[in-house]
C-alpha cells in the first residue's frame, strides 16, 4: 500500500484523475475548487498532458466535449454557479453519449450565492441539470480518500456507460486535508469504436451528434438511454450503512452532512437511542434498495442536508413514504452541527416511538 499523504480534497481529485489516465483538463477559476486547476496546471505539462484555462465555463465544458469525442479521458471542475453555465454542455454530452468527468465542489446559492460549503445542487446534479431527459452518474465523496477513489471510479463508469460522471462534493470536502493513499492504477479503458479520431480511410465516418430531427428516431435514442440508466440503477448504486442493524431511526446524509451525522449517531447511541445512518455514495443512482429495506424496520427517517431539503424527496420516494421523513438542515453555506442532528434524532425518536 502506498504511503499516506496529507492532501486537500481538491488536490486528491486532481492527482487521482491523472492516475486514472486523464491527460486533458479544462477549467475556469472559481472558489472553492481552484486548487484542482492549479494542480493540473502544475502537473499536466510535465506528463505530456493538457491543462488549459478556458475563457469561460461554457468553453471549458465544450473543450471537454471535444476531447471526449476522441475517446480520451477528460475532465473539468467547477463550483455551483459555474456548473449552471456548464449545463448546456452536460446536456450535449448526454445527447451525444460521451464519457466525461465533471467535478462540482458546491457552494451556497442561488445566484452568485456564497463560497461556503453547500449541497444545494442536489436536484441539479441528480436530475440532469441541463435540458432534456438525461442523467449523470453522481458520486458523493465523504472523505479525501473518497475524493480520490470516486474520481477513479467516475472515469471507469463514464467509459463503461458512455455518459458523464459527476463528483458532487462541497467546499469542505474540497478544502479539507486528510491522509490519503493514492494506490491507483490507470484502469483498462474500454474500446471506443465510435470515437472521432479520423477515419484513417479505413472505415465510414463517425459522427458525434445530438441532433435528431425525426421525433421517432429521437424517441428511440431516449428509450435506449433510459434502458441503460435502468441497468445502472440496478447495478451501480452504492451506500454505506452505519449501525443500521438494530436501528429504529435512520439518518440519511451524504458528503460532509454524513460526517457530521456520524458524530451525532455516536452520541445518540451513548444515550441508548437506536439510530443508524445510510450514507448514499452514489446519489444518482440513489441507493433505493437500502432505504426500502430500512423503511420496513425503522420508525422514522431524518434527512440531514446542507440545503433546503432536496435529497429528502429521494428518501421519501425510495421508502414510498411508509415512515415519516424529517428534515434537519442548514443552508446558504452553513453546516449543521452534530448537536442539531442529535436534537433531530431525539425528536424523531419521541415522535417515531409514539407510532
Amino acid at each position, binding site marked *: 500500500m502506498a504511503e499516506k499523504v496529507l492532501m486537500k480534497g481538491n488536490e486528491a481529485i486532481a492527482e487521482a484523475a491523472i492516475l486514472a489516465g486523464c491527460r*486533458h483538463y*479544462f477549467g475556469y477559476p472559481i472558489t472553492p475548487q481552484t486548487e484542482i486547476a492549479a494542480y493540473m496546471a502544475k502537473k499536466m505539462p510535465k506528463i505530456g498532458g*493538457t491543462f*488549459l484555462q*478556458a*475563457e*469561460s465555463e*461554457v*468553453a*471549458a465544458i*465544450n*473543450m*471537454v*466535449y*471535444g*476531447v*471526449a*469525442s*476522441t475517446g*480520451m479521458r*477528460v475532465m473539468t471542475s467547477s463550483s455551483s454557479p459555474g456548473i449552471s453555465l456548464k449545463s*448546456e*454542455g452536460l446536456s*450535449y454530452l448526454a445527447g*451525444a453519449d460521451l464519457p466525461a468527468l465533471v467535478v462540482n465542489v458546491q457552494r451556497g446559492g442561488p445566484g452568485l450565492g456564497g463560497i461556503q460549503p453547500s449541497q444545494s445542487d442536489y436536484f441539479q446534479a441528480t436530475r440532469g441539470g441541463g435540458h432534456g431527459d438525461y442523467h449523470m452518474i453522481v458520486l458523493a465523496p465523504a472523505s479525501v480518500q473518497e475524493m480520490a477513489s470516486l474520481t477513479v471510479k467516475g472515469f471507469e463508469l463514464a467509459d463503461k456507460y458512455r455518459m458523464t460522471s459527476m463528483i458532487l462534493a462541497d467546499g469542505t470536502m474540497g478544502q479539507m486535508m486528510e491522509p490519503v493513499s493514492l494506490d491507483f492504477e490507470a484502469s483498462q479503458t474500454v474500446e471506443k469504436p465510435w470515437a*472521432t*479520431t*479520423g*477515419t*484513417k*480511410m*479505413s472505415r465510414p*465516418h*463517425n*459522427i*458525434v*451528434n*445530438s*441532433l435528431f430531427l425525426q421525433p421517432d428516431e429521437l424517441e428511440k435514442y431516449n428509450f435506449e438511454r433510459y434502458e441503460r440508466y435502468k441497468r445502472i440503477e440496478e447495478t451501480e448504486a452504492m451506500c454505506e450503512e452505519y449501525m443500521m442493524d438494530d436501528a429504529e431511526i435512520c439518518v440519511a446524509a451524504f458528503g460532509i452532512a454524513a460526517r457530521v451525522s456520524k458524530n451525532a449517531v455516536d452520541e445518540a447511541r451513548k444515550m441508548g437511542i437506536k439510530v443508524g445512518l445510510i450514507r448514499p455514495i452514489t446519489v444518482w443512482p440513489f441507493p433505493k434498495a437500502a432505504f426500502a429495506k430500512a423503511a420496513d424496520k425503522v420508525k422514522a427517517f431524518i434527512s440531514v442536508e446542507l440545503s433546503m431539503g432536496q435529497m429528502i424527496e429521494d428518501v421519501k420516494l425510495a421508502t414510498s413514504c411508509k415512515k415519516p421523513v424529517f428534515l434537519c438542515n442548514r443552508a446558504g453555506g452553513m453546516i449543521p452541527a452534530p448537536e442539531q442532528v442529535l436534537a433531530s434524532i431525539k425528536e424523531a425518536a419521541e415522535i417515531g416511538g409514539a407510532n
Partner: protein
Amino acid sequence: MVVFDKPHALTDAPMHYCPGCTHGIVHRLVAEVIDELGIEGKTIGVAPVGCSVMAYNYFACDMIEAAHGRAPAVATGVKRADPENHIVFTYQGDGDLASIGMAETVHAAARNENITIIFINNAIYGMTGGQMAPTSLPGQVTQTSPYGRDVKQCGFPIRVCEMLSELDGPEYLERVTVNNVKNIRQAKKAIKKAFQNQIDGKGFSLIEVLSSCPTNWGMTPKAALEWIDERMIPYYPLGVYKDRSAQEAQDK
C-alpha cells in the same frame, strides 16, 4: 471519361440547402482541399448550429456536431487530444461564430489554436427563418429588423476579420466570396492555405466567406450574388487581413 466528379471528402447524402445557396459551393471547396492535401483520414470537422448544422452528413471525414457557437472550443479539445494526428476544422455561420460564440472565436484566435475555421457570413440567420445577424448591414430588412437595421437601436455589424486582426494570436485571416468563378478560385486558394497552415503547425486560420441567402434575402439566386458585390463587399472588403508568416518573412 470523367470530367467532373464529387470530391471523395463529400458523402453521397443529398444536401438540404435551398436553391441558390452558396453553402454547397463552400462545402465542395473544403472537400476538394481535403482531397488535394490527402488529409481526409485524419480530419475531424466540427459543425455549428445554423443552416450548416447537418454538415456532419455531408463531409466524409469524422464529424462532430457542436452546441451553438461552441465549435472553436470543441475544436480546441479535439486538436489538443492529439495535436500530431488530428486536422481539425470548424464550419460556422455568422450567428454561431460572431454572436453567441464570439467569446469562443476570439479566444481560440488569441491562443493561436492550431485549427482552421471556415466562417460563412451571409448577413442573416438562415435556419430560423431570416432574423438579424451580427453581420446584417445597416438598414438591412430582416424578420427581426422589419424597418431595416437601425444602428442607433441595435448597433453596427461586426467585421470579424478586421477585429481579429488586432490580436497578436491568429496566424491567418482572409475574407473571400464565392459569387463568381474568379472569386471561387480565390476562395479555394484561401481555404487551402488555411488547412496547410494547420498542417505546418502555424496556428489559427480563419477564412470568412461572404455568402448569399436568396431565400431569406427575398431575392433570386442571381440577384443575391449581385447583392454581395453591391452591398456586402463595400462593407466587408475582400482581402488578407493577417498573414503572420508572410509578415515575418517580409520583416526579416
